[in-house]
């Protein structure tokens, strides 16, 4: 992976309040989700990456260069802030056109870029209204338009779906996924797991200013050896299956569900468990209806990592 963004021993605090601490991270092309609860340090990280804040210790580079004070980098970077802010006295059109012109587009091209960006986020019809008359969701979409109007190679979105209605949520997710497919780098922060999950499986988990884990959601899950994996099996003879599994050292517990047709097994060796399970099924002829892993999702991984 060629790193577009590289953080080394990156730390930042505000007075006595810790923002982020000792972060080492490389992010390449494609979509990366920055996941963590409010106050975890996601926004601080993105603000340093967008040149709004300076690192206290360590460094962060984008396209090989430090960001703070390096305004030329913003030809290649787009940033959508989390704050509900805009120049309220301007119309949506004036706001986007101003930014297009500041990105160096002149005359008709500035107009065409602005029109395209507003159209992409569905605000072309309301472009002449003052921003203060926009709804929260419309302003959020306007911020998104401001970050994509110059079609940057790297796009950083801080909570981009906050306040957006369900229809536009789907459209924005598609837009972001398309960006990722084009080989651009997209970093999205969110504290809502399904949002991130809908866009990417490549995640960075942040909590209390530190990175807890990074990588594909399934690989991250595999890293948590100390925590038992849960596997839920739906079959016609759950007690018979349990009898065969209980003797294995890697099975920590077996629970029967109320419906009487499924059991949940906790194991500390996920891969070995599945190998043995497949052997047992083939050998005994037990009829299995469904095998699921209820904790193989972001919420479960996140809960385990922060010690809930």
């Amino acid at each position, binding site marked *: 992976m060629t790193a577009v963004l590289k953080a080394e021993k990156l730390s930042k605090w505000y007075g006595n309040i810790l923002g982020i601490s000792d972060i080492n991270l490389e992010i390449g092309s494609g979509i990366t989700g920055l996941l963590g609860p409010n106050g975890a340090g996601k926004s601080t990280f993105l603000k340093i990456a967008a040149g709004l*804040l300076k690192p206290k210790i360590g460094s962060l580079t984008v396209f090989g260069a430090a960001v703070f004070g390096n305004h030329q980098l913003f030809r290649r970077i787009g940033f959508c802030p989390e704050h509900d802010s805009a120049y309220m006295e301007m119309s949506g059109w004036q706001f986007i056109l101003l930014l297009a012109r500041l990105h160096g587009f002149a005359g008709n091209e500035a107009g065409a870029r602005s029109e395209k960006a507003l159209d992409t986020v569905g605000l072309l019809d309301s472009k002449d209204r003052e921003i203060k008359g926009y709804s929260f969701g419309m302003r959020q979409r306007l911020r998104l338009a401001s970050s994509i109007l110059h079609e940057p190679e790297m796009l950083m979105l801080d909570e981009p779906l906050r306040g957006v209605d369900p229809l536009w949520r789907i459209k924005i997710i598609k837009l972001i996924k398309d960006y990722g497919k084009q080989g651009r780098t997209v970093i999205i922060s969110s504290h809502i797991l399904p949002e991130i999950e809908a866009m990417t499986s490549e995640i960075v988990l942040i909590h209390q200013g530190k990175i807890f884990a990074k990588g594909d959601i399934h690989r991250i899950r595999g890293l948590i050896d100390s925590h038992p994996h849960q596997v839920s099996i739906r079959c016609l003879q759950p007690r018979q299956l349990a009898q065969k599994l209980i003797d294995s050292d890697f099975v920590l517990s077996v629970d029967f569900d109320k419906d009487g047709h499924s059991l949940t097994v906790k194991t500390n060796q996920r891969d070995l468990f599945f190998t043995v399970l497949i052997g047992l099924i083939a050998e005994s002829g037990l009829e299995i209806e469904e095998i699921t892993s209820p904790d193989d999702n972001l919420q479960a991984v996140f809960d385990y990592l922060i010690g809930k």
Partner: protein
Amino acid sequence: MKKQNAMLIIFASFFKSGFKAKRMRVFILLSLIPVVLMLAARVMETAGSLVADASADFFAKVMLVLYFQLLIPVLALFFGSTIVNEELDNKTLVYLTTVPVSRRAVLLGKYLAAFLQAALLVGGGFLLCFLASALTRLGEAAAWEELAVFLGTALLALFCYSSLFTAAGAFMKKSVLIGLFFVFGWESVVQYFPGVTQKFTIIHWIKSLLPVPPGEGGFLIFQLQPSPALESVLMLLGAGFVFLFLAVFIFERKEYILSDNA
């Protein structure tokens, strides 16, 4: 993009949108107060309630104090200090600092817009006041020369104060409070100190340019030991540019925390 282009784009945009801001209405009303007072004096003089030339005297004694010691510093304070602080309060700074434009161009573009807005308010009101006071001698060249000196001094004063308060606004968030203390504390008191001490105020250099003969200006020139006109012009220009340079220097290097850091 060339710095000048970016600066002009920012200037044009903020100059236009600035007139739509709520605070602009307050400033327009504020700048109309001297005009109303002056017109009232003129009407009373015409009606015979005041002695002849009372309005011209009123202009010299009251209007100049009102403009140079109150209106200009206060407008400069609010226009200058909000150049950066307004962006922080509204959390809009992020849009101007994540575009391929230098922070210098951003600050200077916004400064130019704010300065021109304040200059229009001060200059417009000042012109109306002057016309009302000098109604009977508008045909005299001396009257227009006087106006040119007044307006020139007003612009220099506005430039110097605006630059100072822009630098203060770039440096700290509560700069309006500090600015009010400076205008109504330091400037009001120290200007009357004898010797060179009064030269540490901006108002000293402004008053030194006003064409009021010593002994006739009453309150305005109380204890003023005027400096030469050329020295005063150079001091105001020099200080204005130093403050503006300082504002740019701070703005280019300072990180501004838009709160809610998570």
